[in-house]
C-alpha cells in the first residue's frame, strides 16, 4: 500500500498478543495492597464518587430544565393555576422530610394527574411550534434518563437521602414541564 503523507501512516498498531492479562495481574495486587483490610472503605469511596456524579447530573438537569421553563414557558403569567397547577409544587415543600417526599411520588393522586397529563401530551405537543416541541421532548428525555439513573442508584442504596431528594426534584421538574405545556397549549397562545 502506498501513501502520500507521513500522517497517513497507521497510528494504531495492535500488539501481537493481548497484554491485558499481565497488566491485570500487575494492578490487582496493588489495588488490594492499597486497601488490604478495608474493602468497605473503597466501596464507600466509589459510591461517594458515583453519588457526586449523579448529584451533578441531576443538578444540571434541574438547572437546565428550570432555565428553559422560565425562559420558554412561564412568560404566560396567570396560566399556571387552577386544576392543572403542579401537584409537585403544591405537595412538596422545601425542607420537608425526604421520606415524605418519596411517598409523594407514589401518591395515587399524583400518579393519576401525571397519567392524565401524559395521555394528552401528544396532542398538546402538536399544537406547539416545532422548535419548542423539540425542546420539550429533549427536556423530557433528559429528565427520564435522570430518573432512570437515580432509581437505579436508589435500588442499590435505598436509604440515601440525597438520592431521594434528587429523585423527587426530578419528578417535580417533569411535572413542571407537563403542566406548563398543558397550560400553554390550553391558552392557545403558543410558547
Amino acid at each position, binding site marked *: 500500500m502506498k501513501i502520500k503523507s507521513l500522517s497517513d501512516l497507521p497510528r494504531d498498531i495492535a500488539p501481537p498478543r493481548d497484554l491485558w492479562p499481565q497488566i491485570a495481574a500487575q494492578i490487582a495486587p496493588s489495588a488490594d495492597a492499597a*486497601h488490604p483490610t478495608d474493602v468497605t472503605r473503597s466501596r464507600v469511596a466509589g459510591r461517594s*464518587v458515583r453519588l457526586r456524579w449523579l448529584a451533578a447530573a441531576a443538578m444540571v438537569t434541574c438547572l437546565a430544565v428550570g432555565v428553559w421553563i422560565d425562559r420558554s414557558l412561564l412568560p404566560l403569567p396567570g396560566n399556571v393555576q387552577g386544576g392543572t397547577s403542579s401537584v409537585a409544587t403544591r405537595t412538596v415543600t422545601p425542607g420537608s422530610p425526604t421520606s415524605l417526599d418519596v411517598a409523594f411520588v407514589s401518591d395515587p393522586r399524583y400518579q393519576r394527574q401525571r397519567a392524565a397529563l401524559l395521555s394528552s401530551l401528544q396532542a398538546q405537543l402538536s399544537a406547539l411550534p416545532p422548535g419548542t416541541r423539540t425542546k420539550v421532548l429533549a427536556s423530557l428525555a433528559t429528565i427520564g434518563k435522570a430518573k432512570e439513573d437515580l432509581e437505579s442508584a436508589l435500588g442499590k442504596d435505598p436509604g440515601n437521602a440525597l438520592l431521594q431528594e434528587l429523585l423527587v426534584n426530578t419528578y417535580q421538574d417533569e411535572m413542571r414541564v407537563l403542566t406548563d405545556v398543558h397550560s400553554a397549549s390550553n391558552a392557545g397562545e403558543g410558547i
Partner: protein
Amino acid sequence: MTAAQAQSGEIDWEGGLVQRARTGDARAFERIYREHSGRVYGLCLRMTRDAQIAEDCTQETFINAWKALARFETRSSLGTWLHRIAVNVSLAKRRKPSREEPLPDDEEGLSADWTLETPVEVREIEAAIDALPDGARDALVLHALYGYSHDEAAQMLGLAQGTCKAQLHRARRLLRDRLGMEVG
C-alpha cells in the same frame, strides 16, 4: 488543531471510565486499555524499534497510568496523557542512547506538512523512519505521525522547542536522502 483537541470528543465517556477506574474498577480500566492499547503500542514500537521492548513499554505505560489515575485531570485528553507516559517509559527503556550528530542551527523551511513527492510503500517509509537516529525519529513520530504540536512534542520529550524543531529538520533531511525525494 492539536492532538489533544482532536481527541476531546472522547472525553465524555472516557471521563466516566476514568472515574470508575479510580475507585478500583479494573473492568473500566480494561476498557481504557482496549481503546488505547493500539495507539500506545504503535508509539512505543516506533520509538523503541523493538516489538518485545514495545510490549514491555505498553504494559508499563498502563500499569503506571493505573497508579497515577488520581493525578489525571479529566479535562485533558486521556490519549495524550497515556502518550506522555508511553514516551517517558520508552525513553527510559532504551538500552543505550545513540550517538547523535550535531543538530543544525537552521530551522528554516520547517513546515508542518510531511507530504511525499510521490506515493511510497508504507513499509518503505516505516523502514526509513526506523533508520533515523533516535532523537530525530522521536520528534518525527510525535509530530508528523501522531499530530502533536512542536510544543507538545518538545514537552513530551523533555526538550526545548527549538531543539525539537531542529530534530524535525534533521529528520526531514534524512528522510529525503533515504527516500530519494522531497518530503514536505
